[in-house]
């Protein structure tokens, strides 16, 4: 029960903790005492949205590796919203420098029980607002970026004028008004065979390229064939086997 979270018992059943009481309780919870956690939140769902396959055991192994090893936390932010508590915290491990940045957890309560814990890793809050760095180091829209890896349009950024910038709009070929006719042709009624022919109702097709007239043609051709379109993010990279993968690293535990 949640009244056990704090150093002392607090009022029950109508426990209405102050912010400091809640912070103290969360600090104890997030230290990762597995036995304590299991005794207080035996039915809590543990979720890391980036790793939906994790079960309860996997969650502790992957997302709470310091559990029971004396780790502590500094709470950076604490927001109560209805039956949810949003907490941003930074881990402190004995004998280790900080540096993993801040993480977020969203705790959902059902009465006094923790019903669900979601964890979001990798928000480098320190680089943004706390410690060194600060907002001046964040990418500014339209200003160009010194590091292409931080450009929001990384795959297409081109160096111009000493900074990495997005390219201009792609100038596609083709005549206005030709769009739907070519979509119909690509969808299966053209005189020449086309790869999308044979794509039938209920099938799935991905449209990969962005900002080209051909994208719209492919899109409508797939729909015209009664299939389902999966538009692909333009930053997807290609490998030799033409399978798409994420180029950008995924923050995770």
């Amino acid at each position: 029960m949640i009244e056990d979270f704090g150093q002392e018992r607090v009022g029950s059943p109508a426990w209405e903790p102050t912010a400091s009481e809640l912070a103290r309780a969360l600090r104890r919870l997030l230290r990762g005492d597995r036995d304590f956690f299991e005794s207080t939140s035996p039915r809590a769902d543990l979720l890391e949205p980036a790793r939906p396959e994790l079960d309860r055991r996997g969650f502790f192994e992957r997302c709470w590796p310091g559990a029971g090893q004396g780790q502590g936390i500094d709470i950076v932010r604490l927001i109560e919203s209805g039956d949810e508590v949003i907490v941003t915290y930074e881990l402190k491990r004995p004998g280790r420098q900080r540096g993993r940045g801040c993480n977020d957890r969203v705790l959902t309560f059902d009465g006094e029980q923790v019903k669900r814990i979601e964890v979001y890793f990798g928000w480098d809050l320190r680089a943004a607002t706390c410690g060194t760095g600060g907002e001046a180091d964040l990418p500014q829209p339209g200003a160009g970026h010194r590091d292409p890896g931080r450009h929001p349009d990384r795959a297409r950024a081109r160096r111009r004028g000493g900074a990495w910038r997005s390219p201009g709009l792609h100038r596609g070929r083709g005549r206005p008004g030709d769009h739907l006719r070519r979509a119909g042709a690509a969808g299966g009624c053209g005189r020449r065979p086309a790869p999308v022919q044979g794509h039938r109702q209920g099938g799935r097709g991905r449209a990969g390229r962005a900002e080209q007239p051909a994208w719209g043609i492919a899109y409508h051709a797939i729909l015209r064939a009664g299939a389902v379109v999966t538009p692909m993010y333009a930053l997807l990279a290609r490998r030799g086997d033409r399978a798409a993968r994420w180029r950008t690293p995924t923050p995770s535990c």
Partner: protein
Amino acid sequence: MANSDAKLLIDDPPGFVAEAEPGGTPEAVEVEPEDLAVLPYSSGTTGLMKGVMLTHRNLVANIEQAWNSMPLNDEDVLVGLMPFFHIYGQTVDAQHGVSRRARRS
């Protein structure tokens, strides 16, 4: 995106689009409003991309919403800045204009 179960990957399109020629009548396909039309992947700002199941009704509703706030006709040229993989780029920028025979640049 492997779980989209896509059987066809259209990547570099010049091949099939350039070679496809208008002609004939496409085979009629019956589509219900609740049939799945598009499966865009969205992170919802956080986490990994997840497939969002949008039906034909969803798309038409969004196009009609766009029409109410931004009426177009066949004399209009729409400058669309949103990427097509984004749902706004698909519906408001692209399909809205196409449905009204407007041109898009």
